[in-house]
């Protein structure tokens, strides 16, 4: 069963790459599938901004405490270490090593997470960022689970860099800065919808994401439409009904 779902996930990621892909959408799919497949509780991806920091670009949930945890890692944490070192960084029991990343470990405890695993996203000497896996219970990942997680991260990495970028590092910068800016557009649009409908940020995000998937739109495009009052945006601004419930 796991094998079949894993295979399906690879196919899904590759499909995303083939059909006019959007980095943000690709990474969101990656985080959600990792939670399903790997038996962990939360996943987030941080990409390096050329200005010199790691930024959260996708997370399996928009839970505020979890987001705080990712943000902290621009200063310290396993994701930062995995990114810089280029190797997986794992802590099966954060409580047993409180001094390793003091601020991060304290925030993880408050968020209900006991173990964390970070996998680098890189290809040869190109370092993009890292993927974080969080578990509520202490424990290590099996070698097989780690291998699957790294392979999923690698597919996404290769997708972002794709073959043009291997020859031209300018394209990597162009794509990554574009993706990082897309994340800002999504945050701005979340604020717009949260205010209009009196809902929380996580709900505003879900509203846009479900709408984008139901209509086969890119999340970034839907977010931009919310701000610019494009047709999709007007619809999302004027009604709160979840796109899940859409009859079409």
């Amino acid at each position, binding site marked *: 069963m796991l094998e079949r779902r894993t295979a399906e996930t690879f196919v899904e990621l590759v499909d995303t790459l083939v059909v006019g892909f959007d980095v943000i959408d690709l990474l969101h799919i990656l985080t959600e599938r990792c939670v399903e497949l790997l038996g962990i509780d939360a996943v987030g991806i941080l990409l*390096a*901004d*050329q*200005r*010199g*920091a790691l*930024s*959260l670009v996708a997370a399996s949930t928009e839970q505020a405490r979890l*987001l705080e945890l990712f*943000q902290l890692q*621009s*200063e310290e944490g396993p994701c*930062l270490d995995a990114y*810089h070192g280029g190797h997986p960084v794992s802590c099966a029991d954060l409580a047993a090593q409180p001094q390793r990343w003091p601020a991060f470990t304290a925030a993880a405890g408050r968020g209900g997470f006991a173990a964390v695993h970070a996998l680098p996203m890189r290809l040869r*000497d190109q*370092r993009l960022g890292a993927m974080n896996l969080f578990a509520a219970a202490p424990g290590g990942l099996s070698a097989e689970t780690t291998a699957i997680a790294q392979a999923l991260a690698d597919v996404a990495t290769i997708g972002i860099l794709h073959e043009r970028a291997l020859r031209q*590092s*300018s394209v990597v*910068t*162009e*794509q990554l*800065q*574009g993706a990082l*800016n897309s*994340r*800002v*557009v*999504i*945050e*701005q*649009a*979340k*604020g*717009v*919808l*949260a*205010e*209009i409908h009196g809902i929380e*940020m996580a709900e505003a995000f879900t509203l846009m994401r479900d709408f984008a998937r139901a209509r086969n739109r890119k999340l970034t495009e839907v977010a*931009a439409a919310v*701000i*610019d009052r494009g047709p999709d945006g007007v619809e999302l601004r004027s009604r709160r009904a979840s796109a899940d419930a859409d009859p079409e």
Partner: protein
Amino acid sequence: MQMAVDRDRVVAVRAAIAEQARLDGMPVSVVHVCRAAVQLTGAEGAGVSTISSRSGMFEPVQVTGPLGEALSELQVTLGEGPGVTALAQDRPVLVPDLDTAGTQHRWPLFASGAMLAGAGAMFALPLMAGKIAVGVLEIYRSVAGWLSERELTDGLLLADAALLQLVTDATAEQTGPLPPAAGPDADAFMDRWPQVHQATGMVSVQLDTDLASAFLRLRARAFADGRGLREVADDVVARRLRFTPDPDPPDSPPAAGPAVPEPDL
């Protein structure tokens, strides 16, 4: 290749802009950002261009150096070039060598004109924070070659500075001058903290205004209260603070802020 949190470069870029303004004996403006760009990236010229709100055409705001003038004029005349593309696609367009088949295919008229003008490389960095997109910072070099990691980082930080300056200038035309940003939150546009962007979206609805104006109101409020932008944003997101479109609300900026030595970033 080190890309840790690079506060050193933030400080260096801010200092370079301040120094240019000091040499000029003027408050910081976009021209000082351009001159700092020339100095920090080993370029022959730098410019900031925007899309005119009146004509919808590509339009230089500020250009330094003869090479900059030539390339900027080419883009205006031809309606194509790295700066035009960067503005259209909301992402950096980095051209380390103008004399390649790829460049000539992408911008056929611009590429040959740029070569004739003596340009070797051009780097266009959009001035944007999400959907707040106001223009592009262009860096012109006579010799082909990459920007180093450090120069690229500086370029992006300079683009942030130019963005904030343009947004502030545009708002000042309507509402009078706003206080300059100060303290750790002065570098708001590179702020990775999403609540600042979320709050910007919320305030834009509360005030029925665009994102840039909403952002400036947030920033003015933070300044008036002597608090960090992020704290104020947290209050907005938690719904402890609302903005009202009233022309004289308590959250309007003070008429005159204290002197602030640091330039906008």
